[in-house]
């Protein structure tokens, strides 16, 4: 078991190394390299996956509304930050709403407001929806996400959201480092939340609601809290997505996106922030990069390899997902977080019979040997 001091030193070194990797990739690869794409897109998915895990994995509230909150955040950001000069061009068909014509906020303000608006929306629908049993709660949140998608595209809002045309000329990242910076801070906050007393209360609700209530935890208040906080970060994730894509339409955030994120969370392990982050990058890399070869016809020794053509990549990916869901429900990390002790044990090939719970060291428990 390492001392607290040596653990801290290891953490600092690891973070510095990570920063170094990001820096190198930033300096030495071209702006269109696949590695960059995977890192940037992966980090956005990491943020949204962790926000979903906060709700689904840690508090046990099975929500399928993530895409809806991302959409709220993305549209808030886009609407408020498109440069004034470009607005008439973007809103060429309907014209800009008068209140918005002269408004263009700096990116950081847009990001913050994206989160705030998403969490406000969550606060409003949370009160009635959180009372529902788990299956119904899932469907209700799905319903709300669909409502958001349809309303955003609807004609009364044309002068704000530009209806089905969507918004373009959305400002991009100020610098290559922006998404990593924002995602790092957001995830760090969520890590700190889960390590606080409130985070423990969320876990108690997941484990046994009735016992949690018997221990004095106000279910409605804490569920609402988890829901609002999760949506806040989902909103920021949506805004980051808008900055990445530079253009959004009502179809940018379909239910399919929520499924994608859910599957990332499952692969990483429901209840593990580390898992969600790792899975987000793995899945993005696999989907966007490593499995791309499956989409291209391949000839080996004169024979056309069957099955390989456009779309096969996603089929293989879906099958891998089903395999994880069926045979590896724990996912990569289960409910554990990364810890130096756990890593040492893993490297030494030791197995522990009793899995320690979360402690106040970096992250928490141990990787199951």
């Amino acid at each position, binding site marked *: 078991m390492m001392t607290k001091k040596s653990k801290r030193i290891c953490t600092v070194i690891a973070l510095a190394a990570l920063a170094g990797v990001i820096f190198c990739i930033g300096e030495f690869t071209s702006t269109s390299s696949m590695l960059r794409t995977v890192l940037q897109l992966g980090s956005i998915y990491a943020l949204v996956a962790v926000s979903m895990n906060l709700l689904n994995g840690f508090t046990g509230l099975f929500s399928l509304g993530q895409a809806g909150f991302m959409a709220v955040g993305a549209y808030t950001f886009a609407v408020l930050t498109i440069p004034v000069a470009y607005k008439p061009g973007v809103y060429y068909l309907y014209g800009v709403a008068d209140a918005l014509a002269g408004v263009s906020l700096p990116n950081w303000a847009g990001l913050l407001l994206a989160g705030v608006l998403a969490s406000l929306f969550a606060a409003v629908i949370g009160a009635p929806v959180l009372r529902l049993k788990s299956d119904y709660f899932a469907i209700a949140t799905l319903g709300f996400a669909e409502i958001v998608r349809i309303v955003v595209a609807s004609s009364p809002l044309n002068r704000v959201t530009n209806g089905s045309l969507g918004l373009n000329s959305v400002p991009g990242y100020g610098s290559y480092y922006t998404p990593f910076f924002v995602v790092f801070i957001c995830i760090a*906050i969520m890590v*700190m*939340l889960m390590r*606080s*007393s*409130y985070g*423990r*209360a969320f*876990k*108690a609700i997941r*484990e*046994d609601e*009735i*016992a*949690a*209530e*018997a*221990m*004095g*935890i*106000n*279910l409605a208040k804490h569920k609402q*809290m988890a829901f609002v*906080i999760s949506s806040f970060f989902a909103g920021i994730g949506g805004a980051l997505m808008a900055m990445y894509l530079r253009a959004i339409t009502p179809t940018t955030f379909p239910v399919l996106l929520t499924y994608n994120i859910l599957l990332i969370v499952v692969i990483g392990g429901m*209840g593990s922030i580390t898992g969600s982050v790792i899975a987000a990058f793995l899945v993005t890399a696999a989907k966007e990069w490593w499995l791309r070869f499956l989409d291209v016809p391949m000839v080996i020794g004169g024979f056309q390899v069957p099955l390989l053509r456009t779309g096969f990549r996603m089929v293989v990916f879906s099958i891998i997902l089903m395999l994880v869901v069926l045979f590896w429900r724990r996912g990569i990390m289960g*409910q554990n977080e990364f810890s130096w002790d756990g890593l040492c044990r893993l490297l030494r090939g030791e197995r522990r*019979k*009793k*899995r*320690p*719970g*979360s*402690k106040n060291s970096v992250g928490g428990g141990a990787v199951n040997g």
Partner: protein
Amino acid sequence: MAKDMRENVLRLSDVTMQFGGVVAVNNLNMEVNRGEIVGLIGPNGAGKTTVFNVITGVYAPTNGAVALNEKTILENFPQGKMKTMYKGENAGKYGKVQLLSPDKITKMGVARTFQNIRLFKELSVFENVLIAKHMNIKANVFSATFMLNHREEKQMQEETMELLKLLDLEKNKDDVATSLPYGKQRHLEIARALATKPQLLLLDEPAAGMNPQESDDLMHFIGSIRDDFSLSILMIEHHMQVVMGVCERIYVLDYGALIAEGTPSEVQNNPKVIEAYLGVD
């Protein structure tokens, strides 16, 4: 100390609990006074855990009232469909509706354990007890997240460790709750309930699954926590040794109705109780 000189902590007045057409608890009048250890016994299915569920707010009573420290905290009378379906007594006696959720009742100082153990399974022993301290936290979610309340957090953790030591769970502090042997899981349930700093502790079959030596230790343990933590205790139990050994008064329930009450010796010799059941031990 004579019973009438002690102040009352818990009083159930005409509490009836009816589920659909089934009367689970029938017109129960019961009290626990400060510092007492009171037993609640009866055959399986007599409605004992239902009584606990009513006291702790899990179920709203169909009729009757519950008072804590002489102040009514729960009250109800037959409403809606129940008006016509009600099979119990004293239907007209109660006019107000006062219901509280379980967390509020716990905050008032009533803690309970569960018959079937409801630990936070995947969490550690330490966390199970520590979570019970959350209800008294003063910091809001922002302060707690950004660790501005580290003094409070430290205190909660120290208190948790003391409780673990007291219940001989110190060595298991990082073990996952479900990995503990059954007896220790029961100890953990009690530690968790104590962490809420209750004035009234409801124990639901604390000795279940214990061998005679363990139940003997438990008996003494219950007595000592009553003294050390200034508790009043209401206990459901089937182990007659434990009940007769540590309870000062006993209520006997059968088919939801009170059939006897009194001191252990009075109850033991009560023909109605003997007829209904005298627990095998």
